[in-house]
């Protein structure tokens, strides 16, 4: 892997310990993101997308533990860092746009105050006036009136709040931004305009991004590269066009088929039978095998290898879809 | 459940059987939840301990204890002419300034506390659930009137009213229980029960009952009230805590004409000026004072444990 990678995740494994046993939420996941690149993580709910996002920021609940692996951010491994050391890297290098933007702001402070707070913490030399000027620029960038910064979160509409969350994520000039289903709670029209804004910002500011969604169409729109998650594991990783043209893993294939395409030719939607496995007792071998149409004997015995299929296309499958 | 009351007897009994089975099942599940919580078990243990004292008292008076000596109200022991006397084998907790056995007083008073507690709790819950359900169901002017009265009562410290009432009228334990019950009904319990009733009122089965032709009365008593019972039970426990506390304070201030209670015991100690002799006369202060504290906190603890069952979001994960 080359050195222009902003973040490199190697063999990341994260578990939650619960009363009933350990839940392996993220199992042996590796990927890397170059400067200015957007990686989309796609998968059904509960497949470990959000767990990865929280692991990257090390924003984990008390019962979660990173068992092994490395998260190398700008050349430095984050995993062994203490909470206090980690704090200096958050937001200034890696920031996040949250899933539930409705409650991402503290209701008793103005939005501007909550953004200034982050700037004060990470850029102590910036004065209050400079901070406010910066927020004004950010607000204009995300399409908000600058005077909104002195308003309280309850005076914002849902879409405005999401824009403000994006402005806040950009406030300390991070190298990489994690967007965790930022548009899920919004109505379709607002969704679309925010999606466009995120893409534009990410390209203009030459930022890297991890975009998490269960919606294949959204992922296709924003990301340069796509990682497909299933039950805590990454099953396929390739450039966006490549993966849409040539899906290798049967799950990726099923996922592509289960979403309609407005512009493309009419096709029958295929829905995948069954449900994702219980991560307390994940199935042996490939975790997808109980639902897989291409299952062979090997599948329930051994974990498939992470293989390179050329053209920067990786997949873990014993019996891949026809590779042409 | 059917709203048709013209069922045959056999059918009705089978409905009740099913209900009983359901009740037993949910009771067992709730008990399992309750038993998980040490706080509630401690409270229940204390309540059972005091209940044991209540049961033991008449038995002791008829067997081991000479009723003349151990009478809680006017007993006197010729063998210990100097009173108050510290604990001894004959008087396990010593004797009161007028010569009664303190343990006997304590046990006898416990009975009064339970009568008071149960009565006040029943009065509170009956009034509060009815008011809450009616206010939520009818809304509008009925709701407005009930809530304004509740506001009025919440705003005034209950104790000051109780002091004036007990100064004006000589209240018995039963009357006092009713007064305390009424005052504590018009308070937080009605407000909370009403908000609970409001959330039940919009449930589909209420709509279904109305479509099936159920009258207001039927819906309130058959559908609304049963679902309010858990939260009412919770407020029952807090009402008991308040009732025991208020009775003790009034008796302690010398405003209550009951024959014997923990508050009266403390009042005697106070009026005779023994309150500051902790080193020598602790047995005049602690048994009664601790009993009041323990029993009222026991009901509070049970209430808190029930709170965690009724409000699942409080449960620890």
């Amino acid at each position, binding site marked *: 892997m080359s050195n222009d990678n902003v973040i490199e995740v190697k063999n990341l494994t994260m578990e939650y310990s619960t009363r009933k046993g350990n839940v392996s939420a993220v199992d042996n996941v590796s990927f890397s993101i170059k400067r200015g690149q957007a990686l989309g993580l796609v998968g059904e709910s509960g497949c470990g997308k959000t767990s990865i996002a929280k692991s990257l920021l090390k924003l984990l609940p008390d019962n979660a533990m990173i068992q092994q692996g490395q998260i190398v951010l700008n050349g430095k491994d984050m995993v062994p860092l203490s909470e206090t050391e980690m*704090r200096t890297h958050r937001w200034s290098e890696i920031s996040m746009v949250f899933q539930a933007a409705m409650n991402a702001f503290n209701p008793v402070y103005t939005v501007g105050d909550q953004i200034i707070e982050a700037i004060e913490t990470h850029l102590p030399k910036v004065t209050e006036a400079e901070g406010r000027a910066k927020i004004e620029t950010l607000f204009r960038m995300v399409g908000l009136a600058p005077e909104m910064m002195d308003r309280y979160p309850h005076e914002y509409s849902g879409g405005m709040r999401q824009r403000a969350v994006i402005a806040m994520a950009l406030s300390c000039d991070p190298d990489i931004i994690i967007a965790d289903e930022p548009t899920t709670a919004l109505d379709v029209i607002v969704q679309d305009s925010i999606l466009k804004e995120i893409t534009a910002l990410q390209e203009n500011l030459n930022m890297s991004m991890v975009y998490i969604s269960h919606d294949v169409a959204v992922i296709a729109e924003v990301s340069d590269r796509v990682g497909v998650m299933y039950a805590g594991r990454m099953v396929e990783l390739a450039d966006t066009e490549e993966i849409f043209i040539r899906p290798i893993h049967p799950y990726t294939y099923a996922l592509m088929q289960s979403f309609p395409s407005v512009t493309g030719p009419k096709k029958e939607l295929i829905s995948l039978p069954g449900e994702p496995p219980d991560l307390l007792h994940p199935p042996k071998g490939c975790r997808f095998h109980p639902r897989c149409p291409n299952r062979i004997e090997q599948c329930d015995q051994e974990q498939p290898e992470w293989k390179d299929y050329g053209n920067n296309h990786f997949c873990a499958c014993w019996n891949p879809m026809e590779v042409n | 459940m059917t709203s048709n009351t013209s069922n045959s007897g056999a059918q009705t009994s089978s409905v009740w059987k099913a209900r009983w089975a359901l009740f037993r099942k949910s009771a067992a599940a709730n008990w399992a939840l309750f038993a998980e919580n040490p706080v509630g078990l401690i409270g229940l243990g204390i309540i059972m301990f005091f209940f044991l004292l209540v049961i033991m008292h008449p038995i002791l008076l008829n067997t081991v204890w000479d009723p003349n000596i151990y009478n809680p109200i006017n007993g006197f022991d010729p063998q210990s002419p100097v009173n108050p006397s510290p604990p001894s084998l004959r008087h396990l907790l010593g004797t009161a300034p007028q010569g009664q056995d303190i343990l006997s007083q304590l046990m006898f008073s416990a009975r009064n506390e339970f009568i008071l507690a149960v009565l006040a709790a029943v009065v509170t819950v009956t009034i509060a659930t009815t008011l809450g359900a009616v206010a939520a169901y009818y809304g509008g002017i009925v709701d407005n009137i009930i809530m304004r009265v509740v506001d009025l009562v919440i705003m005034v410290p209950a104790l000051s009213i109780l002091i004036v009432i007990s100064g004006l009228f000589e209240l018995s334990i039963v009357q006092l229980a009713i007064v305390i019950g009424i005052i504590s009904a018009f308070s937080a319990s009605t407000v909370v029960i009403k908000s609970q009733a409001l959330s039940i009122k919009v449930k589909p089965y209420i709509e279904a009952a109305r479509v099936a032709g159920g009258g207001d009365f039927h819906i309130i008593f058959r559908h609304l009230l049963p679902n309010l019972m858990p939260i009412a039970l919770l407020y029952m426990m807090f009402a008991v805590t308040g009732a025991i506390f208020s009775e003790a*304070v009034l008796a302690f201030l010398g405003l209550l004409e009951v024959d014997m209670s923990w508050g009266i015991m403390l009042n005697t100690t106070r009026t005779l000026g023994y309150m500051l002799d*902790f080193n020598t006369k602790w047995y005049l202060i602690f048994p009664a004072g601790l009993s009041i504290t323990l029993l009222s906190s026991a009901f509070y603890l049970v209430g808190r444990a029930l709170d965690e069952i009724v409000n699942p979001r409080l449960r620890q994960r």
Partner: protein
Amino acid sequence: MWSYIGKRVFQMLITLVLFQIATYILIDLQPGDVTDLFVGNPNITAAERQRIAADLGLDGPLYERMWNYLTNFYTGNLGVSMVQYPRPVGEILAQRLPRTLALFVYATVFSFWFGYVAGKFLAWKRGGRWEYATTIVGVTLYTIFTPLLGYILLWGFATKLDKWVRNTFGIDFDLPVSKFSSTSLWRKAPYDTNTVFNWMNLNFIILVVIVLLAFFLSRYVPRNRREFLRVASMTVPFALSLVWWIFFSGVGIYAWDLVIHLFLPILTLTLISFGGNMLLTRTSMLETLREDYIETARAKGLPEKIIRNRHAARNAILPVWTALVFSLSSTISGGIITETVFSWPGIGEILVDSVSNSDFPVAMGALTVIGVMTLVAHLIVDIGYAFLDPRIRVH
């Protein structure tokens, strides 16, 4: 905002009148009247008694007597005490009101503040022996029989601690066990007790206002001086006023006498309300810590202290503040008990006293004053909530 306050004041007045009507009817339910005192007197015939009753306005119908009572009340005439005849009720209550008010305000402020701070730290450092111990202490203080706590404190401070101080340091501390002031000391005093006491209260209010102002103004001060300004506002004026009382006021010794008399009642009442406030803040804080904006604050890389104080505790205070509506009444009830236990002459003590002596004009006056106190306290809590929660403030 102002229309809201106006509306609330109007509501409050209606509530007060309703309350007075209710208490009047309650007292009227009692059989007989004042002239029953003359029943055994052979010099006063039944006709004479009727004439006295008519003179006193006791023979009219209920509504007429009630109207008289209410109009008298709102023109400042609260009647005359029967036990301390002919002292006006208004005068008796006016003498005691500042004391009860001070006891109530100090105990509420202290218990709220300490309960809030303790609950905040408890929720932050979850688990372990500390949590068990403090929960037990909290529940004990919340449910303990108020007089028992009062007497335990009396014994601990006025007996045990006094003896220990005398034996160890050779100082006669002599913490008083009852009353508002030492009569022998005040005989030579240049002012009466209430004058000095009111100066002290005024001083306290000024200190509080300075701290509040400093916290408000600290927003407009450069970041690195904020902490300094806040700490200074809490310490410097306090030290200055201490110096003034000791060296320049000339009544330092009298003020000290009032303070040591006030100490135990305030401590008792504070401890009683403290338990509930601490437990509630803890629960509320635990709920708040699960909110999304706490995770946002963590993700922003804010220091733990700022997450705890600025984000979690600031929101956790809202339900505790709302619960003040219920706990105010119980603090006032606790105040009545505390005053009686320490024979501390306030409104609560005179209420119990007058009821025991059937001095109903005084009892009625005291009850009304307590009612007004609670109503005003509620109003202040409501307005305070609007300042704490911007979601309410705007509308």
